[in-house]
């Protein structure tokens, strides 16, 4: 094996890690708000991702009929956000707001929600996995050199997760809305006393987190197919990313998604996928046992 071959393999391997990183990051963003900021355990988060993915699938059918396949995808991302935002808003009003003081019960109730959503998907779209028709610019691959070839969809997801992270960071730390969210999460009573409508903040943050899950689900349709149980496959990884990074820290989520993504894909190079996953998860769990507050911890008065 020549040096250039090793070089291009390293690049492609690194990109595989970056791809997994962007997937994890995009999944974890919504949860970083819902769980990291609000402290709500939403076990149905994966199903919101599936909902976003199914929305894209539906739109691709419409787009095929009216012939605008080349341009529908950005629109589909937006629609996926809006749909999951609305469903998340409804869920908060009906269920979540009654359970803020009972986190363990929230966990169980949202697990019930996830079961119901899975069954709705199964009856609406069938048990088989579906994939939307992708525009050409998303399904090819980029040839960087003779030996280096990376999939266009991976680049797209990477760019999208970068964009989404930036957007969330600006909204949380540079906007007045973000200020009210952080104030509410740090001290609900005082936030209410200075005139913040904390119930409204809760509702909007939860819905926004769900909307981000929808965008994540929509983006994943470019790299994998969607089935009724797709969401539940990711939920534990997503929670681990947020917990590992240190809840309430957006930078922590970024760093932990990067560590887990690169670590797992590097291990996959040397051993079977399942062993790589086991070793990654065991390391994460062991590190969390030694350092329960996660990688980056923000001290918050409770």
């Amino acid at each position, binding site marked *: 094996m020549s040096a250039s071959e090793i070089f291009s393999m390293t690049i492609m391997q690194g990109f595989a890690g970056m791809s997994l990183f962007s997937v994890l990051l995009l999944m974890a963003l919504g949860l970083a708000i819902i769980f990291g900021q609000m402290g709500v355990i939403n076990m149905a988060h994966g199903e919101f991702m599936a909902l976003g993915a199914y929305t894209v699938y539906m739109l691709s059918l419409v787009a095929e009929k009216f012939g605008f396949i080349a341009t529908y995808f950005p629109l589909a991302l937006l629609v996926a956000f809006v749909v999951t935002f609305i469903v998340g808003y409804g869920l908060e009003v009906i269920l979540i707001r009654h359970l803020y003081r009972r986190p363990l019960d929230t966990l169980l109730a949202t697990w019930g929600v996830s079961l119901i959503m899975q069954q709705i998907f*199964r009856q609406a779209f069938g048990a088989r996995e579906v994939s939307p028709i992708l525009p050409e610019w998303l399904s090819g691959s980029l040839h960087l050199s003779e030996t280096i070839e990376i999939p266009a969809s991976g680049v797209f997801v990477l760019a999208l997760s970068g964009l989404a992270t930036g957007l969330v960071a600006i909204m949380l730390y540079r906007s007045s809305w973000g200020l009210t969210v952080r104030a509410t999460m740090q001290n609900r009573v005082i936030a209410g006393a200075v005139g913040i409508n904390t119930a409204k903040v809760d509702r909007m943050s939860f819905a926004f987190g769900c909307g981000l899950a929808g965008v994540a689900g929509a983006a994943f349709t470019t790299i994998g197919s969607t089935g009724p149980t797709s969401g539940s496959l990711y939920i534990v990884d997503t929670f681990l990313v947020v917990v590992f990074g240190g809840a309430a820290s957006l930078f922590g989520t970024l760093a932990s998604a990067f560590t887990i993504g690169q670590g797992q894909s590097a291990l996959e190079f040397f051993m079977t996928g399942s062993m790589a996953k086991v070793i990654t998860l065991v390391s994460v769990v062991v590190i969390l*046992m030694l350092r329960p507050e996660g990688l980056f911890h923000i001290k918050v008065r409770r």
Partner: protein
Amino acid sequence: MASLGKWFSNTAKKVPGDWLSIVGLALVILVVFPLLLDAFRLNLMGKYLTFGFVAVGLVLCWGYGGILSLGQGVFFGLGGYCMAMFLKLEASDPISTAKQSTPGIPDFMDWNQVTALPWFWEPFHSFSFTLLATIVIPVALAWVIGAAMFKRRVGGVYFAIITQAIAMILTVLIIGQQGMIGGINGITDLKTIHGWDIRTESAKYILYFVNALLLIGAVVLSRQVLKSRLGLLLVAMRDREDRVRFTGYDVANIKIFVFCFGAMLAAVGGAMFTLQVGFMSPSFVGIVPSIEMVIFAAVGGRMSLVGAVYGAIVVNAAKTSLSETMPDFWLYTMGALFIIVVMFAPEGLAGLVKTPQVWRERWQQLRRKLPFDALKPAAPSSNKAEATR
């Protein structure tokens, strides 16, 4: 030993699941079910009762201790796998596996080109080691998890998520190791214990009664734990952890004990499951079965030992009948169960049974406030209640 006795000394505190309801449960599972159900249904009921062990353990951990473990399937599975490994070794003696390319090892190893028995299988030739391992391995794992987490004051939802991750890790590990531990199919075709065929109808009856008696024993033992000083501390810790700590108790040790106790019960259930059903597979280890075990306890009543057993029976029976008749409908029912129990019936079935009593108490409270009672001197009990407040 005197100091240990202090922990388990009876405080004569009233705990739910008093003798009457335990005797009632014993009558139902030892007399009524064997008389009413045919051999097939009774075996199925025996399977449900093995989940009752897990549910009873969860009542202690979650209902009384406030520790929600979403990884009870791990302990159930470890107990079950230990028993299954012993049975599998006995089922794969060199004579009955003579046509394999390597006789004398379990069939799935032979299919996966494994030519020698892996080292961790060797001790499971011994039945006494197996019985010991069934309890010790799960409890040791629970102790490691508990000690690592509780000593660092990790609890609540973080603990739940970590236990869930452990359930996922074990499942991925088992499924990935096709040749070593049977992979996704699990360990199947179990036949005999020391030559005693566990597949015959009479063996199934005997195993049912062994299982039922063990379960009653588990309920009685758990009741004793709850009635002891330890049980009192458990509740105190769930409600005001810092105050218990300031009183000088090591909260972590109490949590570790109760978590290990729950793991032990789950492991016994898993071993009995393997014996009665005749196989063990990763589908009883992972995230979904583990969280379903929580719903058994929640439906039965997270504060009621006896209720948890009924919860396991009711939910499993509903699952079997609904997924036979209307498979589409089952997941809706299950999902709705989670939501309804949490929102409207946090005490589950046991809470519903208790309801008349609750209403009577409320009525009496109301009557004290009514004008025609106000003229009379207040009952001494209400004075006392106000004084302690």
